[in-house]
């Protein structure tokens, strides 16, 4: 390229020659200082770009915070599922080894007992119940019931230990048994005035070897009391799960060699547990007592299925499928709804877009051919619907279209329709299409008008002077140039209608609702945000896909919005 740096080498200074020349040579063009031209150019442009970036920064931050972040959050919610493993960590671990047939082993019930006990104390078991209820009907009430019923299991042991020795129901003996002496001293010092932070409970050395379960449960209890309840640990007697753990430790281990604080009290308890009169409850029986459902496999399968931190369950639900131990499978016919809604949403959006094109095109055409003043005046009429609330407009359609409404009345009055056969035009697809076409029409007319008014009338005249009839002129010359307006309007209307919510809600009835109504339902009524997020994500994906398809077929540079 070094042999052709100046235009004087070209045959002529026309842009065509320059183009041809540039195409002929390979390799980068060089600037005057010998550096690649592209590099020099990009350096020159960098400052401009930086300034542009600074100008859009406020908006960018705003959009990031108020738009991108919520969308990212929504995408995340659609797969997030930590609640199960967070609330029932032990249970999910035990269930990991379970084959999913029949009932899980006793350890699972044991783990579930401790998990749910804590969850119930923290009052988060109902949340898990609602979560699992999306997958298994009845889970919500089952968990609510269990929160109350679990105490029955522990109280069996608590009562027996208490009958043996009052001290088992007192705070201090437990603390002496479990707590680190140094910590206890600090705690007592704190208790004097209760100023500042409670010293965090520490287990006494060696106790977790002699009484592993009890120590662990007591530590959990202590942590909960200190941190969540913010009560003085020295004054709180432990809850019954600790007694249950104590029973288990004493039944399975040997404490005869123990000589630490409260050794005699512990040894007496061990003797009680060993005696034949000591009453025990198997965890499985305790659960059966609470609800028969606990000794049926489904609830356990569901917990196992949803124990991973991330799940495809919401997405499967969104497309009328469900997660089963054998993988994803279609839901029974009578439970399928979302695919129907998606298809209906797409179909009706298409119909609405199409009717907007058909109704809007002639209007935009006329407007663009009128003198400026008249066009602006009429444009106000087009925009008039925006001046009234969306709710009012939609309700007005209700008045117009209902069976005792204006249109039916007129039809009956003319005699086109018999009085007893009034048309149903509302609370169905027809009503939704009519009302939404009306509401979205301006979004079609505006871009069409803005494109059409830039088409010079000389094109039409040129075509006619070349011998084209009015129709040929329109179809071959005018229409192709108005396509960018149709494209822009269609994209606007289609995307607006695919996510439309208020109008279908009011006039849609059951057959005219959109997927967005379902999303709104899950957001505000059923509170299944994960499913709502998955549905929203799919909708977003569909829109992006259509956008992409549009770009491939028509070309996005063929869209003019202003």
């Amino acid at each position, binding site marked *: 390229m070094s042999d052709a740096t100046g235009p004087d080498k070209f045959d002529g200074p026309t842009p065509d020659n320059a183009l041809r020349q540039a195409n002929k040579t390979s390799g980068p063009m060089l600037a005057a200082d010998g550096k690649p031209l592209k590099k020099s150019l990009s350096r020159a442009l960098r400052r401009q770009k930086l300034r542009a970036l600074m100008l859009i920064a406020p908006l960018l931050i705003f959009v990031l915070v108020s738009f991108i972040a919520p969308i990212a959050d929504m995408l995340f919610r659609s797969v997030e599922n930590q609640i199960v493993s967070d609330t029932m960590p032990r249970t999910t671990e035990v269930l990991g080894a379970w084959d999913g047939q029949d009932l899980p082993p006793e350890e699972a019930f044991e783990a579930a007992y401790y998990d749910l006990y804590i969850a119930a104390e923290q009052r988060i078991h109902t949340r898990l119940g609602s979560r699992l209820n999306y997958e298994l009907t009845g889970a919500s009430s089952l968990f609510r019931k269990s929160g109350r019923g679990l105490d029955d299991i522990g109280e069996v042991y608590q009562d027996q230990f208490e009958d043996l020795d009052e001290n088992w129901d007192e705070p201090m003996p437990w603390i002496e048994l479990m707590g680190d002496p140094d910590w206890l001293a600090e705690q007592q010092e704190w208790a004097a005035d209760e100023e500042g932070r409670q010293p965090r409970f520490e287990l006494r050395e060696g106790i977790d070897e002699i009484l592993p379960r009890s120590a662990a449960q007591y530590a959990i209890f202590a942590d909960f009391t200190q941190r969540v309840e913010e009560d003085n640990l020295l004054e709180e007697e432990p809850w019954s799960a600790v007694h249950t753990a104590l029973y288990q430790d004493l039944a399975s281990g040997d404490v005869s060699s123990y000589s630490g604080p409260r050794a005699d009290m512990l040894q007496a308890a061990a003797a009680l547990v060993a005696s034949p009169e000591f009453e025990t409850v198997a965890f499985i029986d305790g659960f059966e007592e609470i609800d028969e459902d606990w000794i049926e496999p489904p609830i356990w399968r569901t917990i196992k299925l949803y124990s991973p931190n991330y799940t495809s369950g919401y997405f499967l639900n969104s497309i009328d499928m469900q997660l089963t131990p054998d993988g994803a499978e279609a839901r029974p016919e009578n439970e399928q709804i979302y695919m129907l809604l998606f298809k209906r949403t797409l179909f009706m959006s298409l119909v609405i877009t199409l009717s907007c094109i058909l109704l809007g095109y002639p209007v935009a055409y006329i407007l663009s051919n009128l003198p400026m003043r008249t066009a602006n005046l009429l444009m106000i009429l087009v925009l008039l619907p925006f001046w009234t609330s969306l709710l009012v407009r939609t309700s007005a359609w209700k008045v117009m279209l209902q069976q005792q409404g204006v249109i039916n009345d007129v039809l009956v009055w003319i005699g086109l329709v018999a009085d007893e056969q009034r048309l149903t035009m509302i609370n169905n697809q027809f009503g939704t299409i009519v009302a939404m076409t009306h509401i979205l029409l301006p979004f079609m007319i505006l871009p069409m008008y803005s494109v059409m008014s830039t088409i010079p009338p000389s094109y039409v005249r040129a075509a*006619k*002077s070349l*011998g084209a009839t009015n129709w*040929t002129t329109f179809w071959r010359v005018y229409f192709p140039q108005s396509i960018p307006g149709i494209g822009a309007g269609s994209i606007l209307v289609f995307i607006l209608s695919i996510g439309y919510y208020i109008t279908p809600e009011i006039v849609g009835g059951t057959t005219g609702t959109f997927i967005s109504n379902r999303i709104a339902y899950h957001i505000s009524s059923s509170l299944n945000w994960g499913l709502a997020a998955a549905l929203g994500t799919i909708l977003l994906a569909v829109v992006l896909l259509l956008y992409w398809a549009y770009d491939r077929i028509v070309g996005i540079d063929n869209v003019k919005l202003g």
Partner: protein
Amino acid sequence: MPDTGTSDAFVAFERVQKSYDGETLVVKDLNLNMPKGEFLTMLGPSGSGKTTCLMMLAGFETATHGEIKLDGVSINNIPPHKRGIGMVFQNYALFPHMTVAENLSFPLEVRKIGKSEREKKVMRALDMVEMGAFGGRRPAQLSGGQQQRIALARALVFEPELVLMDEPLGALDKQLREKMQFEITDLAHRLGITVVYVTHDQTEALTMSDRVAVFDDGRIQQLAPPDELYEAPQNSFVAQFIGENNTLEGVVKEISGGRCTVQLDGGEMIDAMPVNVSKVGERTRVSIRPERVEVNPELGEGAHTLKAKVKEFIYMGDIFRTRLSVAGNEDFVIKTRNRPDQVRLKPGEDVTIGWLPEDCRALDAQ
């Protein structure tokens, strides 16, 4: 005015009037006859009704009154697409969504001409404007001059007998415009087509046309070949509008034998050709072209001399332009060729100027 008989006129405007708003006449009583093969230019100030006339001829505007005839047939009620008139627009109006070749084949397609013949004709038309290699391009990928040629080719490809052009070269730079002027006239004469050409540019009008119609105020002020227009303007508007012109005002004192005597407002008496004056005592405006004035003249019999004072001397390369004060006119301009022996006048100098009575035309006082 027009001396061509109506019988052999190819294009004829007969008493045509046009009003857009029903209050003012934009075109007032237009009469115009054009023989076949003529290159006629409509020239005039902005708003004088040139485009309106063209649009009426093309069929995009209807005449409020009068008749327009093409080849002896009234076309008032024929829609534009049936008139078969080629047209070149100021902005070219090439269809942006079609390639150059598609643009050219459009008029052939609507005439239902077969594909092979269509291609042949398109190719021929492209070659005619030397754009044969550009058939596959979009108009936006062409330079202004190239678009201009394509527009021309498109207007000619269906072989119309009449082509209308409304300021087709307005958007081009001076050099390209001169080149295109030549190409258009050359093509028109080669193909023998009749052309009505609208322009603002008087040089363009003078160099290209067989006849020029000078428009003003909705009327043709003069319709004549370029040389006649320049040398023998029929009224002061045309004299002022075409080329540079000096005027001296006065009163007619005597008319006899193709001459008249005018007493200028400063009292001097001069002889002139009576063009637009009819009786003694009438006010008149005498018009003299700057290049016909001589300084310190040695003109023959009947020549006039007047005293003048030099106001300004401008060196313009090929000519000298001198502004003088003559008989009360402070803007009297003379042009002298740059010759070795030509004297260069100095401001403030007193000189005598003179001209032949034939070069001095007594026109209406407006």
